[in-house]
């Protein structure tokens, strides 16, 4: 009679021996099984009664899931089960993809980052996900194992709505791959919560740039968190920063374009109006910081 998991609905814990077995199991139990990594979202949502999966499919020990590999010619691959603290501490990440470490450091607390993963942050598909922007602007591509074997899925178009992605039943994201980044790149993630640390982002601005043969001399990439149903790329703002010589006015114009592009909601954590102004102010700040880092 004693419930070993008070507060959680009853479920079975499944640990398949291979990716194929895992994909098959997930496809066969569509709607009642979920792949499981760090559990930082899964258990919270189950405890709150939003998710009522019968099966939790532990895929974190499968081949390659726990690896970080870097190759100077092909780039970085982070296995789906690599926790954020490992990403933050990785010398390769720090040297070649520092934006990812900067973004990961803003997620929740140290304790939580020992369980939470980058791929989990992406698959959870919260518009507030702190690391998603960095993955988008650095051209991250997901490696997905499905019923038909391995394929790659770019992050562009991956997010469909809050908590919704293009993944199909049986799909398991095994890793995220980043290309070798252009010489001289720089990035910045600014998270705004309601307190100094650990709140969810009410606005997050990711900015990334590298020298290029453009009117501004740079190619700019931006991503916004918590201001639309999905992580948002304000393309017009990117174009302004790339297409015009960089001046204070250009930065202000781009920041305004980012603000105009977003469509946040009012909720208990922040008003839509505040969020929009914060997008403007923090885009200006993030872009300015990137420009300082580029020099």
């Amino acid at each position, binding site marked *: 009679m004693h419930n070993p998991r008070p507060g959680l609905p009853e479920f079975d814990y499944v640990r398949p021996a291979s990716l194929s077995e895992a994909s098959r199991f997930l496809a066969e139990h569509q709607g009642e099984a979920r792949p499981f990594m760090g559990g930082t979202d899964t258990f919270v949502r189950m405890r709150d009664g939003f998710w009522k999966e019968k099966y939790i499919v532990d895929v974190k020990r499968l081949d390659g899931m726990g690896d970080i590999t870097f190759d100077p010619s092909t780039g970085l691959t982070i296995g789906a089960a690599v926790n954020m603290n490992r990403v933050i501490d990785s010398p390769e990440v720090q040297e070649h993809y520092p934006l990812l470490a900067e973004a990961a450091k803003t997620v929740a607390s140290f304790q939580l980052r020992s369980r939470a993963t980058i791929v989990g942050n992406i698959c959870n598909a919260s518009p507030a996900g702190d690391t998603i922007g960095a993955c988008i602007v650095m051209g991250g591509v997901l490696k997905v194992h499905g019923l038909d074997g391995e394929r790659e899925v770019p992050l562009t178009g991956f997010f469909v709505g809050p908590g919704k992605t293009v993944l199909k039943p049986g799909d398991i994201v095994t890793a995220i791959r980043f290309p070798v980044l252009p010489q001289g790149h720089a990035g910045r993630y600014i998270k705004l919560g*309601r*307190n100094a640390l*650990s709140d969810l982002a009410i606005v997050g601005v990711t900015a990334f740039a590298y020298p290029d043969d453009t009117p501004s001399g740079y190619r700019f990439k931006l991503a916004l968190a918590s201001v639309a149903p999905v992580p948002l790329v304000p393309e017009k703002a990117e174009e302004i920063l790339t297409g015009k010589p960089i001046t204070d006015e250009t930065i202000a114009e781009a920041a305004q374009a980012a603000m105009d592009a977003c469509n946040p909601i009012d909720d208990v954590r922040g008003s839509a109006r505040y969020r929009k102004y914060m997008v403007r102010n923090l885009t200006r700040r993030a872009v300015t910081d990137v420009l300082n880092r580029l020099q």
Partner: protein
Amino acid sequence: MDVRTMTKKYVGQRITRNEDPRLLTGQALFTDDVHLPGMLHAAFLRSDYAHARIKRIDTSKALERPGVVAVYTAADMGDFWKPGPLLVPPPTAVPGAVFHKRTQIPLAKDKVRHMGEPIAVVIAESRYIAEDALEDIEVEFEPLPAVVGLEEALSPDAALVHDDLESNLAAHVIQEKGNYEEAKAKADVILQRRIVVDRGAAAAMENRGVVVNWDDKAQELTVWDTTQAPIPLRNGLAAMLGLSEHQVRVIAPFVGGGFGPKIMMFQPEEVLLPWASMRLKRPIKWIEDRRENFLATTQERGQIHDVEIALTKDGRILGLKDVFIHDTGAYDPYGMTVPLNTQCHAVGAYDIANYYTEVKMVFTNKMIVTPVRGAGRPQGIFVIERMLDLAAKELGLSPIEIRKRNFIPPDKFPYEHNIIDQAFAPLIFDSGNYPAVLEKAAAMINYEYFVKEEQPRLRAEGKHVGIGIVSFIETTGVGPYEGARITVGASGKVNVVTGVGTQGQGHFTSFAQIVADQLGVDVRDVHVVTGDTAQFHWGTGTFASRGAVVAGNAIHAAAVKVRAKILQWGSKLLDVPEEELELADGKVRVADMPEKAISLGELAVIANPLRGTVEPGTEPGLEATDYFGPQYGATANGAHAMILEVDPETMMVEIKKYVAVEDCGTVLNPLILEGQIQGGLSMGLGNAYYEKLEYDNNGQLLNASLMDYLLVRSTDMPKQIELGHEETKSPLNPIGSKGVGEAGAIPVPSLFAQALENALADYNLEITEMPLSPNKLYEMVYKK
């Protein structure tokens, strides 16, 4: 030399806490640690509606679920169903006062009056089954319009929270000292403002919890409860259940934070489960979850004030008028303690001859309001400190200067206010030196230097830095009384029992210090027991910053008696006059010949002989019981100051430096005092910039989780906190102490407001509302 006045050894010292080894190693017993054989688990069906009629309840499906033992609704309770008692008397001491008693009920019968109000309880073999069974219960509701806003509650077309009343007016109290209108006629400056303070949660880390066990063979009920008031709870339960007080034992074990809501008694859960345990003859456990804590644990703060202050052109207050509405929520079991405290604190630390204060208390469809750390005081202090700041701006005075011109002077104590306080006694401030406290805070924050040198330099660098300094008073240590029994054992160790409960205040140490000094023993050899009615059964509880004052002095009184017994025995056995003895190192000894001594353990055995005869009138053992009840409450005071920096693009705030100067009379243990101040400060900061319970127009609490309701974390605390002390001993008790449990929380919103206005001086900001948030402040500043 009178050896009885030997120098203090422990009181006033930074003694590390006796209880910490147990707490830090997980050995301390909390309510949820109680596991009994055959124990059942309870879960409560709570209303999703803030206001609705209950048309029908069907529990039959829940009863069919395997593992469900019982399901109770109001209809099953028979005569046991009745509204709880009024915990605080009505304000009849005030002429013309109106008060409508509508106390909480164990389970909603015809109507629900707030979201989270319990409707049914399921008792099952596990909490898991009990929770599942809640979903089997069918309730048909007829939703009613929710009464949410305080002014709206009083509108003639508002829905009625209590159908049998003509309106939602719960109480109306007018108090006046002097004559405000006459004072106003003589004033050079009159300022009027609307001041709003909204609700927050106490959010103790340990939620509420109850474990009950009816032993049918012994005919005894044991209740482990996270209560701040074990003895009154025991007495009330015995009366309700038709038992003798000796058949009911209430134990308040270690409790992870009280902060007020746990003084609220006869909560539905703690009334129902003993009744159910007696019927089922099995132990039952209920541990509140965090969502329940948000919905069904009492809250505080909501008030709207219309304030008017009249001053001379040199900044002297001639009079103050404060007309306010106080939200009591769906019921008013705690009487008018909170709004009366507000009335008594809106005069602040100032000599105000003419004061008119009028409160309308209203029922709303929100959780019940009872004291939360501060208990109406922060609202009163916010009112007066804000009005003084605005007057200072108007008159071109510094915040320090206007306060100094209005303080009650040190030679004017005891200072009588001619209004009634929360204990229905005349409000009297016993002692204090308010200017000295403010000056100390100003010196510690380096006020003059900051304003003249540092701030202009930082502003020139484009930084929005601001400074604030405020004063406050805190009425503390109210009666009626507490008691204690102290026993020296054969091992020489000392046992102290008192009736108050403990929720982290360090009682096991500060009380031990008082006793150790009297009896000359090591503070580690004093074992303190609190909150177990089987050990001590007289007293009221831990509330109103009164533990150290009232229980502390009761313990002191009992210790003095035990000391006298020891000296008497010592004198007899060592054959020297009492005056030549001293108590030290766990012995009574001759002061000039320390080797001539008897240990207290030996003495305890001698004082409790097994054979032979005793002299007539002899009490056995080295034991004494005594009580203490103050004439009236001691009033503590303090001044807080801070320097903060605002990012005007986001309105995120960083507190660079925080100074708190306290005068709580005799300091028992500076380490514990600092913990109290810092903890209170974190709650005060929450009330200023982080924590606000958001109810929508339907009375739905929108942020009932720790993800959405933002508690202050260590990373939001000031980078630097400096504490200073002044000691003006209270003449009202032998120790000379005043309470400090709530002090840290009280001045923070007013201080925060002043510092924000100062930091954002170029935005001409006026803050008359709390809590704020970066979001809200941004919208205030850029409203155009």
